[in-house]
């Protein structure tokens, strides 16, 4: 009973159910091949990396009561910056230079996050509007960087980020897990998590408790920007090019969904990193499943919507009460 009541029970149950469907529909679910793991499950883990990264940042932003709509655009900018710089390298396979360039792209993304955070915390613009600015302008910025072209690169160290394997696991997934670990340590081993939840719960009370709420708010947008930048690199490394239009298109919505599925309320306050990871993997699995069970492409969005509705209903206390409540025994009434 207590397991069922856990807020992650239903997301995990649906995730497991989807994975079981994949177990039967995919040719190979998981096998060892060419010295690394291979199969539908591994594809899911690899493919979910960008979403996990974006959703992680989104979780922190949402915990402060904000939202970051610009993540998709930041992904596009990050990929564009990286590809532009790599293309100009004398040797595109120079690992050191590629790593440096990736660092630059992430720094640019963090700076964009700083812009968002400053608009929200210092200027006092509502988060949804503040980040909408960059959401719209960002794609234009990315197109300026790439001069409206799709920039192709032939860099194997860069490609490794998305398609490589390390210790039999996809590098992209390992990067995402490292980010999860980093955030878990930052929020749960330091007092950052408490301060975040406090700022999200009540900014004015937090300020009077001596918390410098503005700094914390700026910081979460910076983290969100940096993680979106990293996700943008994985996305662009995967297709070995910078596509300013398609990169991270609508990912902000999937990320918000992942956060909500994970049990973090949109109004801010309490947040769950583990929940967000489950949510992100669930969404990715759903996307893969839609293809693997042969839902016609015209109906995939609808199918996805249905699963999401079921999931949200399963998490709604009111709905559960209505459906299951009547079977519950009434508590003892002494005379």
């Amino acid at each position, binding site marked *: 009973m207590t397991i069922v009541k856990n807020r992650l029970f239903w997301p995990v149950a649906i995730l497991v159910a989807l994975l079981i469907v994949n177990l039967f529909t995919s040719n190979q679910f998981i096998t060892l091949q060419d010295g690394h793991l291979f199969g539908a499950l591994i594809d899911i883990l690899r493919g979910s990396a960008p979403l996990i990264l974006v959703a992680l940042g989104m979780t922190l932003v949402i915990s402060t009561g904000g939202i970051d709509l610009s993540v998709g655009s930041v992904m596009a900018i990050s990929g564009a910056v990286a590809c532009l710089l790599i293309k100009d390298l004398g040797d595109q396979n120079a690992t050191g230079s590629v790593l440096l360039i990736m660092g630059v792209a992430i720094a640019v993304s963090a700076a964009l996050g700083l812009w968002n955070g400053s608009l929200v915390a210092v200027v006092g613009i509502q988060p949804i509007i503040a980040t909408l600015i960059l959401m719209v302008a960002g794609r234009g910025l990315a197109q300026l960087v790439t001069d409206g072209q799709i920039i192709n690169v032939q860099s194997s160290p860069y490609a490794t980020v998305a398609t490589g394997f390390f210790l039999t696991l996809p590098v992209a997934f390992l990067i995402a897990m490292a980010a999860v670990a980093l955030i878990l340590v930052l929020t749960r081993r330091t007092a950052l998590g408490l301060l975040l939840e406090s700022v999200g*719960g009540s900014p004015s009370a937090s300020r009077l*408790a*001596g918390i410098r709420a503005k700094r914390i708010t700026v910081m979460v947008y910076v983290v969100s920007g940096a993680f979106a930048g990293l996700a943008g690199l994985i996305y662009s490394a995967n297709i070995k090019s910078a596509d300013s239009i398609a990169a991270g298109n609508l990912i902000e919505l999937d990320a918000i969904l992942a956060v909500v599925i994970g049990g973090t309320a949109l109004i801010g306050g309490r947040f769950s990193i583990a929940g967000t990871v489950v949510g992100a993997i669930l969404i990715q699995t759903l996307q893969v499943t839609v293809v693997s069970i042969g839902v016609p492409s015209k109906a995939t969005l609808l199918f996805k919507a249905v699963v999401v509705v079921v999931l949200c209903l399963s998490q709604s206390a009111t709905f559960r009460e209505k459906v299951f409540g009547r079977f519950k025994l009434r508590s003892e009434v002494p005379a």
Partner: protein
Amino acid sequence: MGEPATDPVLEMTGIRKVFPGVVALDGVDFRLYPGEVHALMGENGAGKSTLIKVLTGVYEIDGGDIRLGGEQVRIAGPLAAQKAGISTVYQEVNLCTNLTVAENIFIGREPRAFGKIRWGVMRKRAAELLKRLDLDLDVSAPLSTYSLAIQQMVAIARAVDISARVLILDEPTSSLDASEVEQLFRVMRRLKDDGVAILFVSHFLDQIYEISDRLTVLRNGQLIGEYRTAELPQVQLVEKMIGKELATLESLEDKAQRSRTRSATAAPILQAKGIGRTGAIAPFDLTIHEGEVVGLAGLLGSGRTELARLLFGADKADQGELSIDGKPVTLRDPQMAMKRGIAFSSENRRTEGIIGDLSVRENIILALQAARGWTRPIPRRKQDEIVDKYVKALSIRPADPERPVRNLSGGNQQKVLLARWLITEPRLLIIDEPTRGIDVGAKAEIQKLVAELSDGGMAVLFVSAELEEVLRLSHKIAVLRDRRLVEELDNTAGVDADRIMQTIASGATS
């Protein structure tokens, strides 16, 4: 336990309500007769709020039955309660201040013709209704143009217009000043004469004795008894509520008397010279010494809170000089004040105090953690140690540190806030209305605590609307009027409530 000749309009018997781990109501009986004001008394956590929520359909009962006008009823929700003739007005007014008075009264049930709202009729009926309560308001003005007291009366007008059998007033007076309370009582008496049964909750004993006919006392979810107010002396009432002798309260009285003479050698902690903020508080001078309790007295809106906020950096002063330990400082934000040993507990417990979603433990350590910065978390074992100590020392109930603070009663939330600041070991504690809306027991405990802290050398700036309290605790009293500090006087033998009232009334500087 005499009772009126008529039958009760509301009769609750053997009401039981259980929450996980807590029996909130354990076989409670409650009767309400038409045309009476019946006070529901009890400490925080005694079950008053639960009983009211049962009546208003917020909670379903686990046992017992409710009869309205002799018929057994099941109150399934707030709408059902309203239909059954039970209306409630809460401490915090649940109206839309941006709408007009008339709109607020008729919201959701506007007089219509062919789907169109008949504004004229609505305004006329609103004016008539208010006139019946002796209120002369501009019904087409936004509600926000009126004081909180008037807003509350508009809420009452709305409530009685919807259904007029039982009216529940849950701490309606806690943020009203004396004349506003009088106005409210006039309205209550009028309704009583019309046969409305009024259930009244207030923490002010004087008000209970002024307005109520009978009272019911609850303690720890159990019924202690039902009495005629006139036949139950105050002291006995308090004893029944807290279930122990009044020794605590009285010893406090002695203590405060003893310690009123502050040591003359104490060093000043904080000195304000001409500190002010345009539109909030006129420039004032104030010095606070070690171990001194400075009381701020004045009416609601006299600038008490504004003054306190400047000394904590919650608002920035735009003129004057402030020095702490003799060193001049400009407080730009609360953390700067905290670093210099100042703590501030706001009067708005819910919006500027507690973080409702967080646990008692997290709320308590919050300020200390903020002072240490996020990179230096307080080890969990240390947290538990501190929190346990203060939960015990301040008898915070329920004594479960992991419970969300939102679920605690007002008095216990206040204690959590005090604990939050005490663990930062401040040298100057600024507390704004710490005893508002909490029961006598908790009130006495908090007053006792303030006296003890001051004896231990902590300076306290104590802001309260209750003169008695200010007089009992303070060494020095600063009186405010119209956003101006008008007088500062030592709390010596000659100073009493009348003396301060005079200053408040006349604004004279002697």
